[in-house]
């Protein structure tokens, strides 16, 4: 591991930590504009985090140590996820630690911890949220895995860096299977990030909430960490989607110039992606909870279809 790679890795993590709340703020702002509301400031998520960190933690009487431990684990998982997804450069020393399958595992680990924490205090909404989260998870996880299988078959590798390198820096080829995978991935990321057709990040209506129901009992720094982790998750999913389906502009190897160029490219891509996300959220209505499995089942089937198309049209491995 050379020094440059190490610095690049640290920079990528720091950038993720700093940029993630901004992305959330940007999406919120776009949503407000599209819905004809006056938008909160762009930096609102930062103010939120600061405020929450300043506040005392108010812990329910029935909370166990697991409840206090879980936000840190979720946060740690998301940091790792952001560390191995190429945002600026594919030269990441941490990338061999976890390939795409392990990446799905990281998200799964975070999910289990937050669902368990939701059940810990023993309130009706907590368990409801935990159950719903696992419901979304058990459908989203295989769909995501199948998306990854399709990309892995194209690049003959499950390592994120190799996949992105293959897609970004070889001759331009149209992969029809990626169209299927891309749609499936979009579906999954909406479900995983508690976005509108499945969940509503802004809701506090008891019957509809999933993510919010799980974190009802959290306060102070714990809540701040969970919110931050949610932002990081959105950032990670956006970057993963961009890296898999629009990989152009990511620096190859350790060229400093490429890295410098990659920053504005990433910013532009994220801005467009966030605006699109807000747009899709605006034109869709939230489905009722038992339509969500259908939504995700469709994603799963599209991903499998992508795999099949890959096998039929694009030659054998």
């Amino acid at each position, binding site marked *: 591991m050379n020094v440059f790679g190490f610095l690049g890795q640290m920079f990528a993590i720091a950038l993720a930590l700093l940029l993630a709340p901004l992305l959330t703020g940007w999406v919120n702002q776009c949503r407000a504009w599209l819905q004809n509301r006056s938008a909160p400031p762009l930096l609102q998520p930062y103010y939120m985090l600061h405020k929450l960190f300043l506040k005392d933690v108010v812990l329910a009487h029935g909370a166990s140590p697991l409840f206090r431990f879980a936000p840190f684990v979720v946060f*740690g998982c998301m940091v790792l996820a952001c560390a191995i997804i190429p945002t600026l450069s594919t030269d990441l020393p941490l990338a061999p630690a976890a390939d795409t399958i392990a990446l799905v595992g990281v998200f799964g680990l975070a999910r289990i911890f937050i669902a368990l924490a939701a059940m810990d205090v023993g309130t009706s909404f907590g368990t409801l949220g935990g*159950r719903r989260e696992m419901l979304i998870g058990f459908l989203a996880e295989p769909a995501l895995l199948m998306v990854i*299988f399709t990309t892995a078959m194209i690049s003959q590798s*499950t390592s994120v860096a190799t996949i992105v390198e293959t897609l970004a820096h070889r001759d331009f080829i149209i992969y029809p299977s990626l169209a299927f995978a891309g749609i499936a991935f979009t579906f999954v990321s909406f479900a995983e990030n508690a976005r509108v057709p499945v969940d509503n990040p802004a809701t506090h209506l008891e019957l509809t909430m999933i993510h919010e129901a799980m974190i009802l009992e959290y306060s102070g720094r714990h809540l701040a960490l969970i919110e931050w982790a949610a932002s990081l998750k959105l950032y990670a999913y956006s970057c993963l989607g961009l890296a898999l389906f629009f990989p152009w502009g990511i620096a190859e190897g350790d060229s400093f110039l490429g890295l410098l160029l990659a920053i504005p490219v990433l910013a532009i891509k994220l801005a467009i992606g966030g605006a699109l996300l807000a747009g899709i959220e605006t034109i869709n209505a939230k489905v009722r*909870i038992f339509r969500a499995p259908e939504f995700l089942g469709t994603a799963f089937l599209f991903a499998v279809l992508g795999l099949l198309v890959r096998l039929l049209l694009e030659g054998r491995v």
Partner: protein
Amino acid sequence: MPALLPIDALLIAACAWLVLGIAGLVAPRNLRFISKTLFPLGALVGMMVGLVALGFLGESPEVAVLAIGLPDLPFHLRLDNLAAVFALLLGFASVGISIFAAGYFRKGEGTAPGLMCLQYHIFLASMLMVLLADDAYAFMVAWECMALSSFFLVTTDHRHAEIRRAGYLYLLIAHIGAIAILLSFGVMSSGSGDYSFAGMRAQSLSPFWGSAAFLLALLGFGAKAGLLPVHVWLPEAHPAAPSPVSAMMSGVMLKTAIYGLLRVSFDLLAEPLWWWGVVAMSIGLATAVFGVLYSTVQSDMKRLLAYSSIENIGLLAVGIGLTLIFHAYRMESLAALAMTAVLYHCLAHAGFKSLLFLCTGSVLHATRERSLGKLGGLIHRMPWVAWLALAGVIASAGLPPLSGFVSEWLLLQSFLFSPGLPHPWLNMVVPVAAAVVALVAALAGFAMVKFYGIIFLGQMREENLKDAHDAGPWERVGLVWLAGLTLALGVLPSTVIGFIDAATRQLLGTGLADKVREHGWWMLAPISPERASYEPLIFLATIAAAVLLGRQLVRRLYHGRLRRSAAWDCGYVFQSARAQDTAEGFSQPIRRIFEPMFRMERHFPTIRDEKPYYSVKVEDHFWHWLYLPVARLAERGSRLITRLQGGRIAIYLLYSFLTLIVLLLVARP
């Protein structure tokens, strides 16, 4: 004096287990002597078995002949690498379980402790002998000893009718399986009269007879392992048995069936056909989906784990099927990858499932309650058990960085190569099978969250749970040992693969170890680092660093203040333990989405009910589709035969006489 050979050491261990068992009979009611002396000694022997097997791995096979049994038919024994991997599993898993058992058994529960000790140690010794057997005769003797001793262990609490029923069912299916295995051996010896495994290896069977032998073996070992449709004994027997026995059966005994299947399909049958793999994989997929769906809807904690075991056995069968397919097409390096996944999952499952069963044992002791609906909040009273169970839960859900993930990862990696198969249907269908595997793994997470969340988290659902006590020191040691194994298997995959690779090499002629060793012990890259890599230690370290740094920074920059207060719950005042999800409530989405998969009896309350209640009972379709019709048929058949029964001795003598005459006429040379 020749040095002590490993095979001799293992034989001595088997004898030692037997001696310990018999020693239990010396003072069958002296609980203190038996549990605090004999069981720990049994654990020591288990440690020895594990270490000897570990040391043996990579050596060339050793044979021995025991002059017991029938004249001219001695026991042939052989220790090779495949057997050693499973002996390793048996030894190390039994260490944890025996130590736990030292603290587990209480006075006045069914069978006398001395008898129990005998049955338990015979069970262990016979499992070891199954692994060492090198002819059909020795194998079947050991196999039957294993079945019988475990039957007696299952029916320890034989005063309950349902436990006797579970034991009967287990015995019945075990014997159907044993008959199938016996027939399979018969086919493989193909009339030569030589029932040693060496003789069977030398036979070259025609594809038809080879397939017959394979299918019989799949049925026979499948009945022991719990493959569909001969799985029904498993969810009955596991909850009935005392927890250490459930742990031993689920963690180790099911693996002996996997061992048998591997032995037959890769060692004794020389030429596998590709469709064997398809059969094994299809049954495996069906079993895995069935097992995981049923495990999510159970309300009894041990039943939940039993169904989860069925799921894991299904995944193992999928792996074996994939290995067979690759092997049949001579893609040996890929077959080695899938085989490694299978062996790894055997080890991993032995660790985490034993751990979880033992945890349910502690919970059962502390609360006298198996039903999930009456538990809850035990993390406050039983922190040791709760935190150690968390390790088992994460591993069982197939999540990094623990053991279950490694085998799942290897299996998915080998699935990624399946489009390269030279068969036009397989290369499309097999990758889709990977999608089902992914779904199963994700559903396992759902089941495990239910298991853990309902037992250990939340508010206590019953008043008497306040008196629950944590596991005792012996139990803690056993649990820590198994959790340690789970962690070690999770973070040191390359080292472990270096050990078990000898078995892969023996069966397929090639292994993974060389490639894995190239990249250092901390990294798992079975093909090349560009293709795929996983570094669990760095993975763990990164998350740990983020957790610690985050915690320190927050405390330094802000503060660490904390207040306790009542739960918020959106401001609802009425917060009782009854407001939480029940076990049935938690799995309601699964029951709804996969409704056709279950046979449900539900009672819905109506407005007019005086005491409204909701109840749901989920039953197995197979009972109604397969077992009850067969049972009815058998009953009708026996009723016909009853007519022969007249009660007069003269008639019976006439039957015998007629039989004799017919035999004399027919059996003339």
